[in-house]
């Protein structure tokens, strides 16, 4: 029972980490290694809005998402757009930007462990005999809704489809009248917004620390890859796979094997299914 509840929570958390990354990659084929940094940054933005400007919670959240989206768009417009399609350069550039964000946060005094966001709703409830705080339940709820919405968005709306097309063959998309530069900026803004959303949802659980940027990044990548890039269903499955693998090892093997098991799960999944759980990349590339 506890495994089920906390496994689910853990999985949704992972899924939330991954969403933004998956979106940006799925749409503009940009491995956004600044994802973790944006996550942390938006946490601090919310904090500042709450504590320095004294805004109420909801406007602060909305404002943060907008600001982060704009930052994402700016990063794209001024840096990444010039190296489109050069994947390695993109990785390095976005990683460097992430590093710059994280380190300047640190420089401006956002360091240490004293920055936190309040929970949306305080208190906890017992499910069975297991106490779960409301906030975690909210996370699961919102997380699932967001995933569903995104899936609908990318599969059924015109823009969503156009974005996916652009990711696969930019030139062909151009020929069909899809403005790829604009779209990529939209995608990046959207992805950054999702990073912000994840941060706002998840950070009240703990505190805002710059280091978590790296963890978020690694977990996000892992989830996306195991699921198969570009596959929403896959990412969700992967989040649950890794999430439950972690909780199960925590229960039966000891927490310090958590990461070992998770990493092993990733590596083995990929060896068995080289394009991730639901991906088709390898098969597509090898189709002759």
């Amino acid at each position, binding site marked *: 029972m506890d495994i089920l509840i906390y496994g689910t929570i853990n999985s949704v958390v992972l899924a939330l980490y991954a969403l933004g990354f998956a979106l940006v990659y799925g749409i503009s084929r940009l491995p956004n290694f600044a994802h973790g940094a944006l996550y942390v940054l938006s946490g601090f933005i919310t904090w500042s809005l709450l504590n320095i400007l004294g805004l109420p919670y909801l406007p602060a959240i909305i404002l943060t998402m907008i600001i982060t989206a704009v930052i994402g768009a700016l990063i794209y417009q001024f840096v990444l757009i*010039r190296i489109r399609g050069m994947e390695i350069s993109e990785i390095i550039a976005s990683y460097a930007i992430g590093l710059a964000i994280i380190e300047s946060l640190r420089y401006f005094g956002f360091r240490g462990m004293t920055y936190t966001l309040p929970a949306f709703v305080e208190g906890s409830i017992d499910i069975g005999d297991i106490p779960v705080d409301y906030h975690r339940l909210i996370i699961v709820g919102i997380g699932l809704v967001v995933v569903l919405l995104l899936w609908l968005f990318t599969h059924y709306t*015109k823009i969503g*489809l156009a974005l*996916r*097309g652009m990711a*696969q*063959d930019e030139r*062909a998309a151009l020929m069909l*009248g899809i403005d790829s530069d604009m779209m990529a900026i939209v995608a990046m803004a959207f992805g950054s917004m999702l990073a912000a959303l994840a941060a706002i949802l998840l950070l009240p659980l703990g505190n805002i620390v710059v280091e978590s940027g790296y963890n978020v990044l690694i977990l996000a990548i892992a989830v996306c890859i195991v699921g198969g890039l570009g596959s929403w269903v896959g990412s969700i499955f992967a989040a649950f796979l890794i999430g439950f693998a972690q909780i199960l090892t925590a229960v039966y093997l000891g927490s310090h094997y958590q990461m070992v098991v998770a990493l092993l799960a990733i590596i083995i999944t990929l060896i068995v299914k080289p394009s991730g759980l639901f991906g088709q990349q390898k098969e597509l590339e090898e*189709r002759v």
Partner: protein
Amino acid sequence: MLEATGLMVFYENMLALNNISIKCEKNQIVGVFGANSAGKSTLMYTLSGIMQDIRKKEKMAGGERITIHGDIFFNGKSITDTRPSRIARMGVILCPERRRIFKESTVLENLKIGGYLASRSQAKETMEYVFKIFPALKELKKRTGGFLSGGEQQMLAIGRALMAQPKILLLDEPLLGLSPLMQLTLVKATKEIRDDMGLTIIVTEQYARPVIPIVDYAFILENGAAVLEGTREELMNNPDVRAAYFGV
């Protein structure tokens, strides 16, 4: 409707298009014929603005290889330096050679993406029309594009271009890899589309016979230069052309 004057395209030091001027009137089917490396694809890319985009991107990455000169007009308006997505919005849609379909998306999604510029009802209508020309695609709706056979991909590529509600459709080797029956259907359909929807179509082929019955006007390219042009009858009456391109 679409007019290009004095088009010159260099790849590095190689002249791929040499001072080409072509013109096509509304509601015409214009053929562009030529052997391998005559420059047909280059012409199509240039007309649809893709070549300019490639050039821009190459320049941004450091190496400037391509030189483009000349002017392109669409309905009297210069589109020489317009972004390809804008050109497509104006109605010039290119169906490129070698079937650049969206490999990871399903057939249906491919078509829907193609319908990006179309309104909902237009898209629905056109989709039905595409399925009418290519009944095979209907069966394949749910399949992933990249797994289709060569010919099926070709059909999909053409269908997708139609979805974009073209005013001028540029077809680059549309018959490549299609079975004879499919070619026949497509050629017939092309004429039908022109007649029904009032489209203007430019089609390239190196093997002209299948399409010659439907073209109104044709250009013959050789080594990047337009060596001959004329109406169908004029060309058909030219024995050299008949031998080289129509295989009769």
